[in-house]
Structure formats: structure tokens, C-alpha cells
């Protein structure tokens, strides 16, 4: 009896092996799906403009929010069904404000299709839709381009590559967040074609968007602890400019206390390890080290000054100071953001030039 029932059950399941279409009327075969991998967003008056790029095509639509714009966009689509389950990047136009960013992140968090670890990029100039169309017109596969840019940023970039979840958490916790900035540029292979290049960070807060250049991005990376092997070119007159590969950088943040128990300063110690990539052989090593330390110090000082000016701890220095002295930090009685404005920075940078790539360096 049991065997007969099992046989019947197996027979009943056989139709399921014929593919999705046999079971569900709404199912679509793979060749009728259009895989969209990049989402572009631009503000459009009170509404927004959504652009989806994938498999060589760009589709755009307007709407009060992303779902409405997506509906408008799907109405223009061909007979193919747009599949957004494998979106890989979100690209925001230069006019993006905190409200549009929150719309995008809210959509990413609610959508069963999207992941919260999607990298988010913000254009420093121009509209996302225009860039996507220009890239597609030049024969570029937008997703591949952004994919390779993402890989390049992960390995060679000076700072972290914040994803949607991290940005959302930053906005919820600190009221501000960093977004990787890109700038449109001519393609290296053909100047008539367009490409994109990294351009520091956009700092988004309730007050608007401000920009951090690449020098400040280095400061962000060293303080955050997430940076790839980045190259720094230093001017060292009268010698030829030198390029150093910054292989490792560790920073330690310690709070310094006033006699009344209040936080008076942050001491940041940075340890750098670099190798000489290109240099005038007459350049003395101490001069190279000093130039590297100077460039890094400047980046960190500038980014700290930006943090103080904005009154927003986007570098999470407060958390690091709290980890260094949790009990005293708790007894301080004020929040870190309240102290930030009056804090002084005591910065110590120490560098080690590990080797000169098989060429004798000057003493």
C-alpha cells in the first residue's frame, strides 16, 4: 500500500519536471527575460527618473517613486520581461539629495529582488541616465564596466567601497554616510567614447551633499582600515616625482582626556608600509618617507577638519575612541558629536619603505 502511494505521488510530481511554464501560467522562459544589472536614478522635479541598463539596452521611466517609475518603464519595454533580481549596481546622478538616496535605500531594503550589499555610486557631474546611454552608445556593457571598476576599487582604491546596507546604517546611526563618487571621463581606448573614473566620496547628510577628493579619500581609507594597495605620486623637487605603493596602513585612535574628565583631543597613530614603485635613484629614503608621511598626514587632517565642520562623525572615530577607553568614554556625560567641534587632533604618522623593487635605492 505504501509503495503504491509513493508511486502515485511520484507520478503526480512528473508534470513539475516539464519546466516552469507547465505549472504556472505567468512563468516565462529564459530567452524571453531581459536581465537588468544597473539601476540609475536621477531627481526629476518632485519625482524621479529610473533607468535600467542590461544586455546592451537602456530603459528609462519617470514616477513618484521607484516602483511607479518601474511600472512606467515596463510599459515601454518590448515583449521581453525585465528581470531585476540580479541588479549589481546603483548609480545616482549628481543632483541626488538625501531624500533620493533614502528612497533608493528604502527600496533596496524592502525589495525581495535587491541585496543590501549592492555598491552605490554617485556621479560628481551629470545625470545617471545620460551616462548610461552614452556608455551604451559607445558599445560599453555598463554592468561589466562598473563590475571591473568595482574590482579595481576593491583592490587599488584608497578607501572603503560603501554598499547600500552600510550607507543605510550610517544614515540611521550617524545621520550621514559616505558614497563612492565617480566622474564621467573619456575612455582610455578611444577619447570619443565615455567611461567613468573614481573621484573620492560624496558625503550625504540632511544638510545636502559635499564632496571629498582623492586626498581626503586616502584619509578615509586609513582611518577606516579598509584600503587596497594604492599608489601615491609625490613631488620631490629637485628630484623626479616618485611613486610609492602603499601596501598596508593601520591606524589607532586613542582619546585624550582633560582633567575634568572631558574629551579634549584624539590621538591618531598611523603605521604605513610602502614600496618604491618609481623614483629618482638619487632621492634619499628619509626624504621619501617624510614626503609619504606628509601626504598621509595632510589627507587625515583634511578629512578630520571636514568631519568637524559638518559636525557628523562619518569616520566613526567616536566608536573607535569608545572602544579604546569604554569606561571613561561612558563617564564623559556628553555625546561624541557634541565634543567633536572642540577636539584637537594629535597625529603621528610613521612609515616604513619595505623595498625598492629590485633596484638599489639611495641611502
Amino acid at each position, binding site marked *: 500500500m505504501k509503495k503504491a502511494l509513493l508511486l502515485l505521488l511520484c507520478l503526480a510530481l512528473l508534470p513539475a519536471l516539464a519546466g516552469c511554464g507547465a505549472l504556472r501560467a505567468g512563468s516565462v522562459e529564459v530567452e524571453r527575460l531581459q536581465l537588468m544589472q544597473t539601476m540609475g536614478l536621477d531627481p526629476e522635479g518632485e519625482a524621479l527618473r529610473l533607468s535600467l541598463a542590461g544586455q546592451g539596452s537602456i530603459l528609462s521611466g519617470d514616477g513618484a517613486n521607484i516602483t511607479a517609475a518601474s511600472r512606467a518603464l515596463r510599459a515601454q519595454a518590448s515583449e521581453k520581461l525585465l528581470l531585476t*533580481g540580479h541588479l549589481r549596481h546603483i548609480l545616482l546622478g549628481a543632483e541626488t539629495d538625501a531624500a533620493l538616496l533614502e528612497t533608493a535605500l528604502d527600496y533596496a*531594503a524592502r525589495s*525581495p529582488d535587491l*541585496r*543590501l*550589499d549592492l555598491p552605490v555610486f554617485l556621479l560628481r557631474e551629470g545625470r545617471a541616465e545620460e551616462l548610461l546611454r552614452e556608455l551604451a552608445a559607445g558599445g560599453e556593457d555598463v554592468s561589466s564596466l562598473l563590475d571591473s571598476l568595482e574590482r579595481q576599487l576593491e583592490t587599488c582604491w584608497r578607501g572603503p567601497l560603501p554598499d547600500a*546596507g552600510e550607507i*543605510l*546604517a550610517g544614515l*540611521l*546611526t550617524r545621520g550621514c554616510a559616505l558614497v563612492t563618487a565617480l566622474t564621467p571621463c573619456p575612455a582610455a581606448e578611444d577619447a570619443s567614447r565615455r567611461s567613468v573614473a573614481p573621484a573620492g566620496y560624496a558625503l550625504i547628510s540632511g544638510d545636502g551633499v559635499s564632496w571629498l577628493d582623492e586626498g581626503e579619500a586616502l584619509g578615509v581609507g586609513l582611518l577606516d582600515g579598509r584600503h587596497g594597495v594604492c599608489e601615491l605620486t609625490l613631488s620631490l623637487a629637485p628630484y623626479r616625482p616618485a611613486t610609492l605603493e602603499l601596501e598596508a596602513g593601520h591606524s589607532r585612535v586613542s582619546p585624550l582626556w582633560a582633567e575634568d574628565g572631558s574629551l579634549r583631543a584624539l590621538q591618531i597613530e598611523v603605521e604605513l608600509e610602502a614600496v618604491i614603485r618609481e623614483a629618482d635613484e638619487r632621492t634619499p629614503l628619509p626624504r621619501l618617507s617624510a614626503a609619504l608621511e606628509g601626504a598621509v598626514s595632510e589627507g587625515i587632517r583634511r578629512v578630520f577638519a571636514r568631519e568637524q565642520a559638518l559636525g557628523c562623525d562619518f569616520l*566613526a572615530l567616536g*566608536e*573607535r575612541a*569608545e*572602544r579604546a577607553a*569604554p*569606561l571613561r568614554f*561612558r563617564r564623559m556625560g556628553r555625546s561624541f558629536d557634541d565634543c567633536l567641534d572642540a577636539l584637537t587632533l594629535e597625529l603621528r604618522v610613521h612609515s616604513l619603505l619595505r623595498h625598492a623593487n629590485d633596484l638599489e635605492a639611495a641611502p
Partner: protein
Amino acid sequence: MRPASLRAQQLLSLPLLALLSPALRLIPGSPAAAAGRAAWLSPLAALPILLLYLGFLCLFCGRRGPEEGLAELCLRCLGQRAGRIFLLLAGLWLLLFAGFSLRAGAERCLLTVFPHASPAVFVLPLALLALWAALGKLRSVGRLARMLLAPLCALLLVLLLAALPNLHAGNLLPVTLYELPAALRGSPPVLEIAGILLLCPCFFLDRAESLSFRGAALSLAGALALLTLLSAAVLGNFGAALTQKLRLPFFTLVRNLVFFRSLERVEALTVSLWVFPDLVLETLLLRAAARCLRAAFGSSGTMPEEPRLSLRGGRWLLPLAALAAAGIALTLAPDARSFARWSDELIPTWNLVFLALFPPVALIGKLRKKI
């Protein structure tokens, strides 16, 4: 008929596997709302209280007579009239909880993989499966739980390991003594789900080997250690502010995982595997509810293990309980807000009240010299 014997390990596997179902709904989202960054310590903070409760259950159940489970023991402590009222209320509460758990399982599938489906698609098959399992031998369910517990815990550990690279220390540390009150504030969700699942197997002790406190305490500590790791992984990735805004933060984390830069989107597979804890939880609750109601309606002693389709000896209560649970699941919360209220406020509060009723029952039994 001689009662089938359930080994102590199989009996313990039932609540441990069932715990995985509500744990991933409530933890660490609910503790994060109350405890902030310290929420990952909430399962550990709940351990001493749960050990005390476990000690009480072991002592209380140690006084049961032959062929007695927790329901019959309560009846003996409170007397026939008060005991039947108590068991009727307990049975109805367990039925409501079973209905809510059915709905919560369906909501998990809706929120993570099938947003356009109706809850009925998940509620009705699971209710039928749970009824089929509840009508069968308890030993079979115990064996199923024992077999599935290790693979599901191993899967959880693999997922947690994969989540490690994105962990931010600042989301979890520092931990000082000041974090202890916050961690305790976040412990009620852990207390209620672990407490209710420790209580349910006590209704079937007439069919099982006696529980040793040491064995149960070690299993409980292991389960809470796993929940601590899980909370640390989710909070370390998202931070407390984002975690408390997400309905199912663990499955959001799973959706983000990429293995070896090639394998991703494993959330559907993970969610589908969580049907097994749902099934065991439902079976456990249906049988416990039927056991309470049967005793409340005047049939005492062991519920006979008959062939599945037999409804003799009070077994008719099982299909009725499954039907009621499915009905509750489909009508309980018509919208997201009311479901969130049931999930975060009503069910946890009343579960804690339900758990708190048993020590006074034991005390009354002691005063009446019935135990």
C-alpha cells in the same frame, strides 16, 4: 497499548529544532530594539533565568506519577475544577500560539521569497503536514528532529562563517559591565521562545525517558550560544539601528552572502529548509494543546498511539486543533502592522505570562499536599 518510549535526546531535540523557527524571526531584531549594540549578548543574559526555569520544570515534573505528563500533573495540583479551567485556558493559548506560528512561517516565506503569494499557500500545507505528524508516533517526530538538528545547526554555522568578513567591530564592541542591563533588557524575546519550547516537551514525559537537568542545561546553553553567534553576525554586519528596522534581519544577511565570488542568492534554499523547524514546532504545539484540552475535557492518562486515521481516545482533538490553528493563522493579522504587534508585543507578553503561571501551580500543589 504500551506507550512508545522517546529517548531523552530525541525529546530534547524537539524544542531545540523548534527553537530555530521563532528565533530567526525575533532575534536579533527585537533585542536590538531594546538593547541596542548589546543585543548580541541578550541570549547569554537570558541563560541564568532559563536555567532557573529549567530547574523548576525538572523538579516539578519529577513529582509526576506513572502515565502522567505536565497536564495531568497540573490537574492533580489544582484539583478537578480549577485544574480543568487552567488546562482549558492553557490549551486554547497553545492553539493560538500554534496558529500564530503557522502564520509566522508563512510570513517568512512571503517576505523573503514569494512576496505575491497568499499566506494560505503556506499555512494550509504546513497545517496538514503537522497534523499528519501529530497523528503519528511522537517517537517518529523525535527521530526527525534528532536527524535534522545537526545539519541545520551546521548550515547556520556555515552561513555565520560566511558573514564574518563583513563584520564591523564597532557594531559589537566595546562590551563592559555597563552593557549588562541593556543585554538583560533585550532578553525577554529569548526567554519567551526558549521557555515555551522547554515547557512543551514536559507534556509528553509520560512517553519519554526522564529528563536530566544536566543534559537539558547543556543543550540549552549550546542553543543560546548559537543564538549569540547568530546575533553577533547580524548585528556586526548591519549595526543595531538597521537591524531593528528589518523584519527578518537574518534572512536579509543570508541574501547578501556570496560564496567564493560565485555562489549567491541562497536565501530561498535557506528559507525552504526552515520549513522543518516550523513543522516540528507546529507538531509540538498541536500535540501539547490537544493534550491540555483532552485533560480539560475529562480524559486523563496517556493519549493512545493508534493508527494515524484512528480518532479514538481523544485523538479527535488533533484534527480539530489543526483546523483551529489554520483558521487562526489565516484570520489573525490582516495587515503588516497588526502582524508586527502580534509578533513583537502580544505573543511574547502572553507567552511570558503563560510561563509564569506554572510555578504558582506547583506551589498550590505543594500547599494542597498533592505533590
